[in-house]
């Protein structure tokens, strides 16, 4: 039984996970016993009292007080246990310790952005220290999203009109997957991020260096990196196929027809504008739902993207 339940659940990587898992196990085990009890009784009855002849006469049994009280009271006891256990776990899950390391999370269709106390930010990747409570303060730019990390057993909706919070304390270093679990449209199932749990020293070091860009990297490589790290690939392909947005292959230098009928040439400036204020010039035939990257990408990343897109010609 324990093996099955362990197989069913993702690894426990936060301090709260084990309590959730014990309750999960408790309900599974007691539910299983209850269920088997009912099924075995039915099986016995079906075999023992199967119809023997067409004129079987059955007794009139309309009630039995002891039984009825029992099957009312026992479930009530069980649900009270389950409720209070779940309640206790929930209290822990919703009360972040005061000393938690705070990360601001901003969700947009369909990417995650994480801002650290120092000021730097990452996209679709989040780095957190092990053995230290981390609190996410979350808000959305458009529709409702939901941040879920199964390994930590946490989940919280991210709302457009106010902040919601969730917290965890990771117990081991490694990588965990972060899902968007509130349906948010086309890219919902691609709105994933990776949680990198680092040891305390590695985390401090990462804060120092990780947020900085490698000055020596060629611009186009910076662009290529940004293309995935900023989540452009959720909407744009590089091979000519349409996704939510147009493919970026052969984009540079081509004539773009906008929804208002005008035609512009996709030059450096146009690509910059597409990133900073995408709604201003919407390409005909596509929805106007590209998020704005103003403030999310630094100058070097934007230059990099432009250089990268420039090279995408076949």
């Amino acid at each position: 039984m324990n093996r099955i339940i362990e197989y069913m659940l993702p690894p426990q990587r936060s301090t709260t996970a084990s309590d959730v898992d014990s309750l999960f196990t408790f309900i599974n085990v007691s539910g299983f016993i209850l269920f088997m009890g009912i099924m075995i009784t039915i099986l016995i009855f079906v075999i023992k009292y199967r119809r023997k002849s067409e004129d079987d006469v059955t007794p009139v049994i309309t009630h039995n007080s002891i039984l009825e009280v029992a099957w009312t009271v026992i479930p009530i006891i069980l649900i009270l246990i389950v409720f209070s256990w779940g309640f206790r776990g929930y209290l822990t899950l919703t009360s972040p310790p005061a000393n938690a390391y705070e990360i601001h999370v901003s969700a947009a269709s369909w990417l995650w952005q994480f801002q650290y106390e120092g000021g730097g930010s990452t996209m679709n990747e989040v780095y957190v220290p092990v053995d230290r409570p981390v609190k996410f303060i979350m808000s959305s730019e458009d529709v409702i999203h939901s941040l879920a990390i199964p390994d930590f057993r946490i989940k919280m909706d991210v709302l457009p009109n106010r902040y919601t919070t969730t917290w965890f304390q990771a117990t081991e270093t490694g990588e965990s997957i972060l899902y968007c679990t509130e349906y948010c449209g086309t890219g919902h199932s691609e709105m994933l991020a990776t949680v990198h749990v680092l040891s305390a020293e590695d985390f401090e070091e990462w804060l120092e260096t990780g947020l900085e860009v490698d000055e020596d990297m060629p611009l186009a490589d910076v662009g290529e990196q940004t293309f995935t790290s900023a989540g452009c690939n959720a909407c744009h392909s590089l091979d000519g196929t349409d996704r939510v947005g147009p493919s970026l292959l052969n984009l540079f230098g081509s004539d773009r027809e906008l929804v208002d009928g005008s035609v512009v040439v996709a030059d450096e400036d146009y690509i910059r504008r597409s990133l900073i204020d995408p709604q201003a010039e919407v390409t005909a035939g596509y929805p106007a739902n590209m998020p704005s990257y103003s403030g999310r990408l630094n100058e070097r990343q934007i230059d990099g993207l432009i250089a990268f897109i420039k090279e995408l010609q076949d």
Partner: protein
Amino acid sequence: MSHHISTLPTLLSVAGALLVLTFLTVAVTWINIPEPFNVIVAITIAVVKATAVAMFFMNLYWDSKFNSVVFLLSILFLTIFVVITLLDTLFREGGLPVY
């Protein structure tokens, strides 16, 4: 079951009472009653008026009691809806939704 036929005086006096109460509900706004009592007063008057309409114009007073129960059920479930929803909206940590 015999059908109830309302007498003229009943109908007229109910209508009269309704008019008086309408005047009253406007009149109380002239004197300043502090929050939340002004709302309470206004709603109380409205409830009295509605009850009068239901009982005497809509004949619930003479009708089968089941119909009154049916009608009260709607109020009961509306109350459930309001009260439980307020449990959320009034007790949110983040306070008011921002614009």
